[in-house]
């Protein structure tokens, strides 16, 4: 199971980085979303990967999984959701103003 989790985190990060380096806003946003998925799984795994153990007190539990990363990942998911939504809105605004969704500023060096 560790192998599965680790390789899926790695795969999503790689895809995310590849997409992020594109020159259009849409792939960049998808790439950022992929990276934040990878990040969420990573946070989840930071409490050690265990199966079938309860995170909260229970009478017949022999061991527990760490509840804190689950709380952290919830915060991270909410925040990355909100941030992505803001990015989409700003990107849409830029698209309607500029007429294209190229990510680079025109005449960047020359202003």
């Amino acid at each position, binding site marked *: 199971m560790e192998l599965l989790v680790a390789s899926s985190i790695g795969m999503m990060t790689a895809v995310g980085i590849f997409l992020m380096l594109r020159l259009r806003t849409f792939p960049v946003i998808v790439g950022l979303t992929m990276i934040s998925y990878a990040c969420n799984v990573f946070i989840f795994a930071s409490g050690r990967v265990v199966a079938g153990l309860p995170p909260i007190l229970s009478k017949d539990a022999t061991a527990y999984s760490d509840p804190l990363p689950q709380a952290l990942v919830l*915060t991270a998911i909410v925040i990355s959701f909100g941030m992505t939504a803001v990015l989409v809105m700003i990107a849409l605004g830029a698209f309607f103003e500029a007429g294209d969704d190229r*990510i680079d500023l025109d005449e960047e060096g020359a202003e």
Partner: protein
Amino acid sequence: MMSHWIIAPVVLPAIIGAFTLLVLRNTLVTARTVSTAATAILLAIALYLMWGASHEGPEAYFLGNWPAPFGIVLVLDRLSALMVALAAFLALVVQLYAIGTGWDAKGRHFHALWQFQLMGICGAFLTGDAFNLFVFFEVLLIASYGLMIHGGGRDRLKAGVQYVAYNLVGSTLFLLGLATIYSVTGTLNMADLAAKLPSLPEGDAALIRVAGVMLLMVFAIKGALVPLHTWLPATYAQAPGPVSALFAVMTKVGAYAVIRLYTLAFPADLPATGPLFADLILAAALITLAVGGLGVLGARSLGRLVAFAAVTSMGTLFVAVAQFTPEATAAALYYALHSTLAAGALFLLADLVLARRGQDRLTAAPRIAQQGLIAGLFMAAAIAAAGMPPLSGFLGKLLILDATRGPWLAVIWSGVLASSFLVILGFAKAGAVLFWKSHADTTPPAPHAPQPLAFVAVGALMAGLVGLTLAAGPVTAWLATTAAELHDPAAYIAANKLGGQ
């Protein structure tokens, strides 16, 4: 006992921001009054907290009364109180400028976003928990996204997309770093980290180094350290003038986080990491100095010139931070105070010029309204920013050079002095083109409203710089105690009452 006052800098802007958003969004005059009054009260609270922190030492505020490290704590100490006061002062002055120039009328939610921005900044300065630091970073970022694109426009929105995307990557890195730290130590409370990291098992040293470097990269993005500074020039040049001026304190959030975490949790005598972070910061800071100096020299618009001057000042600041000695940290704090005010003043002046010229390219153009006053203020602010006597920039750089020790002495001295020279040259060239060459053109300047409040705001920032220069003795003495407290964090850790003592 400062007790509940510690949370006031977070709660007050949060309430006022929500209130402004829901109730006052259609009444500009009331929104201006309420928001400015709230920022003034915030400044008063910050000064009271500063007084308390310097008399009673660090104090923790346990949210929900949960004991650390299980609950979230805010910790008030000299550094956090100082930074909150600095942010509140800058915000108040710049807010007056935004009102005086009518910037805040160009969109409906300026004051609400302004308050949320302050909430995030104050929270980031006060929190004693690394994950909570991330949350406050996000609060200040999401407000800054709104402020950055305030007023709209094609170029601003495009620069906004870059800014948001860059910071989203930064946030992801922050989370990855925090998760790694948690998986190694099982805690994210900063004081608890400081207590646990020295006894880390050998096998986890590599992980903690990776996590430390990831966090350092996040703070380097915020603090505009090369090579992670690339978002700054476009953002600062495109953002509305008053917003860029407030962002002058945002780069200091990055510097603050480095000073806080890397003196508390990752000091140079930590066996797992050693001087790794100090070396990385120093190298990046020296390159930042060069890039910033050359950027100032090569900039073709006033906005970019000032933005690169801000990059240079962050380079200077991080050169001092990287040495991690009490003397150098005290010098860094003095320079941070100075460079925040100086950068704020310069961004406001650049905005005044932009409003009167219609564009901010560094080319000869007819004279502008209120040219004499703006030119005089620009010269004073440029002298301060470049670090020439008699203003506080000179003192700040002198303190930094004086505190420098070790094998890198010659490189640091030449780097700081050479970059100062480039900045002086860049500002002299810009000032000559903007204000001198226009006299050749005898057409009368296009009329422009005098906007007295805007000049009062710039004047207040300059007065702050003069005050910082005149009161350099008491200020540096206070900062020396602050730095000593940072490098001997026993009191800070004890304030967290770990293990329920």
